């Protein structure tokens, strides 16, 4: 272990080989999601609006009314910025992936429990009773763990996150256990700031109009018009969002759970939230002032030579383009046939024979590794729309302003809740929320994460029919032959 000479190759830090789709800055100190464009938009909007306010409105207001106004504005602005940066740059509570030893151990246990070595094992779930409620723990094929309760896999960041709330493109990060309180503080303080700026800009215009008329007032202070417009639209969305999250905090639910109606009484009269502490005050205190667990992923630690290898993820059979190590697994003839079979069966054979060089499969075979889910789902756009899935039309692959579908349970919510400041407050909960599918597809035969097809649990039943195996086998072999000729 101790060498007399310094090693030539510099020691790499763990963040450099982090398996998820995150971006790291400042040598691993800051972490964000991959798509950060919308975050910069948020930053620009806040900075520009506040900058205009302090430059054009505050001097007048400080003189006419009181100098306390810019001071309060300044404090609010700093708080908003601080909480935004904290939300965006911190680890939301990512669960590190299982080591290969752990994964192997779990697989052994699952095989023992299932007792069958059938063609495809059933979806992996574990049931646990928490406070009298039965909760299903799902197995994550990417991270190779049974997800703890309330954890969810974010398909955009490709990580399992503890107490997953939602993926927020506006802060450029997931919102989970470790940064929920910063997120809440951010939207709360932003609501106050927006209302503050809005009301004082209106006051400014009114005071000026008393002196020199309305139109002249607008001409003297053109920036105020822009501020009013931005604030007017922001107020509706941000205040609504704060209200919604206040409700969530007081009932100790996550956005994910609320949207799926996990603890709704509509599901059954015995359905209640087992995580709630009973009263609103305790729930709020627990969420905002509870202990803050440290990050589990040790971004800045150095990679030791003896560290256990991470288990490569498997999505049942199809992890096309997921990681390099996939190729070694995915070239397994058996699995290739099975996945081809699935695609063929889903699309109805005649249809697929026309488009035999399915981009989906092509991507898989030509992919040299490295996760490219964006590309994969883009390619899905073609065959997907023609597939009679009975699922809502899959969204485009650009994650920033569109939503991935939530689980198949509530398809209504799977649609484009495109975040838009102009969006009026009809469904406050729909705002701002990036609905990510809860899991990387667990039933085997499903296409990789990000694919809406991955959610059809109901479809699973039809595919493991050994009777139709032979006819499909022929078709799939035909498909494979066409593939290999490309």
């Amino acid at each position, binding site marked *: 272990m101790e060498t007399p000479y310094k090693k030539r190759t510099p020691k790499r830090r763990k963040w450099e080989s982090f398996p998820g789709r995150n971006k790291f800055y400042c040598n691993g100190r800051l972490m964000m999601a991959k798509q950060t464009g919308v975050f910069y938009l948020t930053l620009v909007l806040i900075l520009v609006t506040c900058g205009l306010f302090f430059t054009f409105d505050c001097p007048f207001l400080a003189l006419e009314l009181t100098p306390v106004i810019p001071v309060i504005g300044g404090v609010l602005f*700093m*708080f908003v910025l*601080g*909480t935004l940066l*904290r939300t965006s740059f911190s680890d939301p509570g990512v*669960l*590190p*992936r*299982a*080591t*290969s*030893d*752990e*994964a*192997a*151990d*779990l697989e052994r246990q699952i095989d023992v429990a299932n007792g069958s070595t059938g063609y495809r094992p059933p979806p992996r779930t574990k049931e*646990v*009773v*928490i*406070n009298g409620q039965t*909760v299903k*723990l799902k197995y994550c094929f990417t991270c190779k*763990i*049974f997800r*703890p*309760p*309330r954890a969810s896999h974010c398909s955009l960041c490709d990580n399992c996150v*503890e*107490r997953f709330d939602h993926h927020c493109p506006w802060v450029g990060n997931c919102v989970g256990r470790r940064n929920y*309180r*910063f997120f809440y*503080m951010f939207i709360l303080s932003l609501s106050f700031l927006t209302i503050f700026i809005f009301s004082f800009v209106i006051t400014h215009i009114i005071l000026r109009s008393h002196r020199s008329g309305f139109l002249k007032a607008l001409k003297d202070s053109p920036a105020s018009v822009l501020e009013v417009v931005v604030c007017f639209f922001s107020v509706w969305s941000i205040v609504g969002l704060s209200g919604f999250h206040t409700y969530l905090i007081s009932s100790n639910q996550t956005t994910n759970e609320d949207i799926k109606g996990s603890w709704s009484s509509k599901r059954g009269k015995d359905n209640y939230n*087992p*995580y709630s502490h009973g009263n609103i005050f*305790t729930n709020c*205190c*627990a969420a*905002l*002032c*509870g*202990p*803050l*667990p*440290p990050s*589990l*992923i040790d971004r800045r630690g150095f990679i030791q030579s003896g560290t*256990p*290898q991470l*288990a*490569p993820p498997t999505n049942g059979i199809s992890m096309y383009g997921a990681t390099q190590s996939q190729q070694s697994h995915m070239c397994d003839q058996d699995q290739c046939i099975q996945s081809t079979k699935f695609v063929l069966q889903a699309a109805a054979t005649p249809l697929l024979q026309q488009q035999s060089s399915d981009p989906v499969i092509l991507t898989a075979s030509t992919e040299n590794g490295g996760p490219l889910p964006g590309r994969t789902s883009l390619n899905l756009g073609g065959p997907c729309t023609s597939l009679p899935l009975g699922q809502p039309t899959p969204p485009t692959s650009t994650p920033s302003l569109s939503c991935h579908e939530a689980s198949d349970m509530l398809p209504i919510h799977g649609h484009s809740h495109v975040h838009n400041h102009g969006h009026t407050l009809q469904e406050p909960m729909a705002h701002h929320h990036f609905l990510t599918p809860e899991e990387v597809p667990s039933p085997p035969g499903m296409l990789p994460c990000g694919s809406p097809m991955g959610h059809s649990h109901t479809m699973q039943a039809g595919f493991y029919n050994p009777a139709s195996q032979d006819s499909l086998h022929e078709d799939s072999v035909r498909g494979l032959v066409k593939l290999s000729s490309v």
Partner: protein
Amino acid sequence: MAREFHNLQELRHNASLVTKVFVQRDYTEGTVCRFQAKFPSELDHRIERTLLEETVKTLNSYYVEAEKIGGQSYLEGCLACATAYIVFLCMETRYEKVLKKISGYIHEQNEKIYAPRGLLLTDPVERGMRVLEISVFEDRGSSSSSPSSSMSSAGSSAR
């Protein structure tokens, strides 16, 4: 006669790893960090049941202490909020302090109880709080350590 490993260094350098046993998380109390008290059958002939159960129970109590929602955590939370969370740059959170205590406890347990029996506990924090990993090393004296089990662990890591 079983060879006694007198310290951790000896264990790490001389012994060969046979297999790893994992104590999984117990979620029956919610999302609080807690490990199952169930005794793994693979360790039947390696360590007394009560010793491992005692270790797991102590660890669970430490985690409860770390995640306790009470006066001190509220104070810490409010102070942090009031200082825009800058205070965390200079101060260690209570959770981190307890994790340090746990790390010390595990090291002590390894030295006193587990290493002499050819076992090694890994701090759950190094495994993302998913499992309590117990490495089982070759017990030179006993004939029960079979090459097949070491091959299976080698085979699984090659997968």
